[in-house]
């Protein structure tokens, strides 16, 4: 090695060799510590102010070549603190040297093993990089590339192959998008879109797609940026033109998609419905590369996820639903025999293709019943979902569940295809020991399958769903808690006594109280809903109240006294009304003056819904034909209920008025 380093001339020879021969590069980075020293030597030379610029440049080039090797190469270089050394190099006045350092940094930061945080460790780096953007087309290209690879935390599908879904927010400090934005990334990079160099334009475009993702602040800024007198969205639309390179069309479609989802462009804007959407559909075409088809489908799924009109347009564009069915035909049967390279390629992308297709199906069918029907009528659709649910790849399983969830919103499908294919079986399997992200969607699906009219309800119960759902309600994950309690609520609706008892037993009173004091209003609402469903039909009410009456009454009091919204209070009053419908359970209310005062209070509440709910309680309590009604009527008259009833019978609200009159009649009889 020493002799290699003797002259810069030899160095340049080495750099050429390394760049062209991956094999050689890999050998340079041997586990042998002796050889790791080579990198250290190069770094040392690089950092020596006294070395000639030429030598230092060559060092950076060689290091860049080394970084092109395996991930282990990059790791070793990172261990040698190559990044601070290279960043230091950027302060040099020599452009050639700066470019070499940037090229090497680019290679290192684009590696999946490099933590993005390293770019942000020193606060002076980003401003310096922004300043370097004006130096040359190479600095522009490399810096944009570095930015777009170091801004990925919030990106769930920007690069279909590398990143898996990520948590939405970074743990501490402002996220990378904000840092870059605050340093003027938008202004500094926007004009690069009109660069004469294709690579620069492309990297700038990628940078914007990364910056705009789920970021309203950046997106709102982008729509108003002018480049050469044209607004940025118009420039993106021009880049969507069909004769532009596919990579450019796809990336600018992503930019527009992200800006749209971040609320900066309306979903009915022509640049979305007539440009972005059709471009993304075209990316799903058979003629495109597998990678492009994956990215196209994922981006389209994201674009249309929440807008039913976009879903409708996509569903009729270029036979998209049928086109997606091709995504399941990899590896194709021919390729296995004829072309081993092709088979390898197919296999690599098969999972990605399937998960992308499921994702897009899920978005397409999210709201429109007709589209769901069309999807299910696609050849082998249900079989494909069922297979997808048991695939080894978690990504495929997740999106298969998503797809199933989307389709499970259809009552008709629940009763037909879902039943025919016994989808509940693989679904229950998915729910065992799955990671949270899968569990969230799978349990949502289960909620739908447990609806009263679903024929899958019975077999799901028999396969131990109650236990599973009860355990979900204890999860740290809010979405899982909601889904767990929601599913239980659905399950309890018009259920037989045994199931209700099982639910109560499985949940335990402590857990029930835990849920009633949950910080999330959704959990609270569903728990109240569960209670309400449990407390229906008289024998069930008496039964449950005889065993859990005390706790339930406590909980109800607590909620009625607490700071809750109207819906929660209404739901609680409805529970009271149900309790009042019981035979023995009535006494729990009649003997509780505190509760009676509360009912009285809500009868005169300003909100009609709450008044009505309170009225239900009263009617149930004073109903004539039941035993002891006389005593209850008297007691209620004593606390002033009748006066209120008279007032309410004059109410302008017809419901209230009716209800009050009926109640008063009970007194007359």
């Amino acid at each position: 090695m020493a002799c290699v380093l003797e002259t810069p001339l030899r160095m340049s020879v080495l750099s050429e060799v390394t760049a062209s021969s991956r094999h050689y590069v890999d050998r340079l980075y041997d586990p042998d510590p002796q050889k790791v020293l080579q990198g250290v030597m190069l770094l040392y030379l690089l950092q020596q102010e006294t070395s000639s610029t030429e030598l230092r440049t060559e060092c950076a080039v060689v290091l860049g070549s080394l970084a092109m090797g395996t991930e282990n190469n990059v790791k070793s270089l990172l261990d040698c603190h190559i990044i601070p050394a290279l960043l230091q190099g950027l302060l040099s006045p020599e452009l050639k040297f700066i470019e070499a350092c940037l090229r090497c940094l680019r290679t290192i930061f684009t590696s999946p093993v490099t933590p993005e945080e390293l770019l942000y460790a020193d606060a002076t780096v980003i401003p310096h990089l922004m300043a370097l953007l004006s130096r040359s087309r190479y600095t522009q290209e490399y810096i944009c590339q570095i930015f777009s690879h170091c801004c990925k935390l919030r990106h769930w599908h920007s690069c279909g192959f590398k990143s898996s879904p990520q948590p939405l927010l970074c743990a501490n400090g402002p996220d990378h998008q904000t840092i870059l934005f605050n340093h003027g990334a938008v202004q500094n990079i926007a004009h690069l879109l009109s660069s004469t160099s294709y690579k620069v334009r492309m990297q700038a475009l990628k940078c914007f797609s990364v910056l705009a993702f789920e970021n309203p602040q950046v997106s709102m800024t982008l729509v108003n940026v002018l480049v050469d007198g044209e607004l940025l969205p118009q420039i993106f639309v021009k880049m969507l033109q069909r004769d532009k390179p596919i990579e450019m069309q796809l990336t600018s479609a992503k930019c527009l998609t992200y800006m749209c989802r971040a609320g900066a462009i309306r979903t009915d804007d022509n640049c979305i419905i007539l440009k972005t959407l059709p471009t993304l559909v075209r990316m799903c075409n058979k003629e495109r590369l597998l990678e492009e088809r994956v990215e196209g489908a994922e981006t389209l799924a994201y674009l249309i996820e929440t807008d039913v009109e976009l879903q409708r347009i996509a569903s009729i564009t270029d036979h998209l639903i049928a086109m997606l069915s091709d995504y399941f035909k990899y590896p194709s049967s021919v390729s296995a025999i004829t072309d081993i390279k092709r088979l390898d390629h197919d296999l690599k992308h098969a999972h990605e293709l399937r998960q992308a297709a499921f994702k897009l199906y899920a978005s397409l069918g999210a709201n429109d019943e007709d589209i769901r029907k069309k999807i299910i009528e696609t050849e082998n659709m249900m079989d494909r979902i069922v297979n997808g649910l048991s695939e080894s790849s978690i990504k495929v399983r997740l999106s298969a569940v998503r797809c199933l969830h989307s389709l499970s919103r259809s009552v008709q499908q629940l009763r037909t295809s879902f039943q025919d294919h016994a989808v509940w079986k693989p679904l229950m399997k998915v729910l065992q020991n799955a990671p949270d992200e899968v569990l969230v969607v799978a349990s949502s699906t289960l909620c739908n399958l447990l609806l009263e009219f679903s024929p899958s309800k019975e077999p799901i119960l028999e396969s131990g769903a109650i236990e599973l759902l009860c355990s979900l309600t204890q999860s740290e994950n809010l979405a899982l808690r909601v889904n767990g309690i929601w599913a239980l609520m659905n399950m309890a609706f018009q259920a037989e006594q045994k199931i209700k008892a099982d639910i109560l037993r499985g949940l335990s009173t402590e857990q029930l109280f835990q849920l009633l004091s949950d910080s999330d209003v959704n959990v609270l609402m569903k728990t109240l809903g569960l209670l309400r469903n449990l407390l229906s039909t008289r024998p069930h009410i008496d039964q449950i109240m005889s065993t859990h009456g005390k706790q339930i009454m406590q909980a109800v009091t607590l909620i009625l006294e607490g700071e809750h919204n109207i819906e929660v209070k209404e739901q609680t009053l409805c529970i009271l009304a149900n309790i009042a419908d019981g035979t023995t359970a009535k006494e729990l209310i009649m003997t509780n003056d505190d509760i009676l005062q509360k009912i009285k209070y809500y009868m005169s509440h300003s909100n009609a819904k709450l008044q009505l709910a309170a009225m239900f309680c009263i009617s149930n309590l004073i109903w004539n034909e039941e035993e002891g009604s006389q005593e209850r009527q008297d007691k209620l008259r004593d606390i002033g209920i009748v006066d209120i009833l008279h007032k309410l019978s004059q109410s302008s609200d017809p419901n209230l008025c009716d209800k009050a009159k009926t109640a008063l009649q009970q007194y007359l009889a």
Partner: protein
Amino acid sequence: MNRLPGWDKHSYGYHGDDGHSFCSSGTGQPYGPTFTTGDVIGCCVNLINNTCFYTKNGHSLGIAFTDLPTNLYPTVGLQTPGEIVDANFGQQPFVFDIEDYMREWRAKIQGTIKRFPIGDRLGEWQAMLQNMVSSYLVHHGYCATATAFARVTETTIQEEQTSIKNRQRIQKLVLAGRVGEAIEATQQLYPGLLEHNPNLLFLLMCRQFVEMVNGTDSEVRCFSARSPKSQDSYPASPSLSPRHCSSNSHIHSTGKCSSRQGADSPSCSNGVTSTRSKQSHSKYPALTSSSSSSSSSSPSSANYSESNSTDSTKSQQHSSTSNQETSDSEMEMEAEHYPNGVLENSSTRIMNGTYKQEEILQTDESSMGQSPLQGCQIKRPVLLGGWASVCSGLGGSRWGEGLGEQLCREYGKNTTHKKMLQDAFSLLAYSDPWNCPVGQQLDPIQREPVCAALNSAIL
């Protein structure tokens, strides 16, 4: 007309009531969404890959049909009384971005060209380019240039020089509108070629007929100087070149100058003229008979001369041999246009007869006072030439039809031939053939495909 598009043969449609596509069939295939009042439906036929897709409100619905025929017309079918449809053929911007679609195809085709595999021939660019240039020169008969090119690049030319020259000469004849001569020359130089290529022969003959109407086939040299139509014809008629003359006279060794013309021009291609006048008697009947049954050995030059000949004896002779109907009409024609006949006869194939022509034309001008185109000074001579040809044209119609019939018998019905024939004869129906709906046939540019076809056939 009372059936919806797509239900019948060669008809394709997308129906709004069920969203199905109909491909020449009463039963549709599920295709797209339904559409109704207020929707904008677009239809794009891609003539590159012969597919078609529809759009609804600017959204492409995907390919509906493949392997479409080329001659399609836009149609809209309406079922309910009082329905109104706005048709937009591009006078307003389309909702669907068709420009963008075309851009993609342009890029696609450019890409195909750019990526065209060179394979093993890589590195032989020089040779390939030379070969390309050389074969172009040879194909189009640029004999001297090709030889010079071959000499400089040290390559060889496959075809013999004389062959190139012959082809060149025949091509020039066709391009000058002198199809009759071209046919004759072809038969002399490449015996059997036209006999084995009846379709080509038919094409040539149709062209010849058109040229007669144009006045170029018979009078090209006489009129080229003054007629605006003939001016378009290719200059430097090969027949003027001495080489041509000699070869021609060699071919028509039997030819002698007719008594009237011979003295005028010893150097001109009198041989042709004489051949005509001499042979016509024997050949013309042969051709007419070909229409009845037997195939004529060499109908081309015979037609030509026959059609130009207005000598009463000749036609009488002719009519006596041909069937009654033919002779009848022929007689009629000749009677009608006798003055033209004179003109034509005298002008036929005279190189140096220009002054004569002038004279005749002038007399004709006066004699044809009633001509509808009298006012047009420049056009008149042309018209006269055309008129003259019309006279003979009817004669030509017989052989043309005859050959057509023969071809029909041999190869089954040929709609292309029928159309060709119909178009050619339609010229007769107009008083001013150049300004009629089928008048574009007379454009000299139309000679080029005929010329190319003949040249390719010889090669």
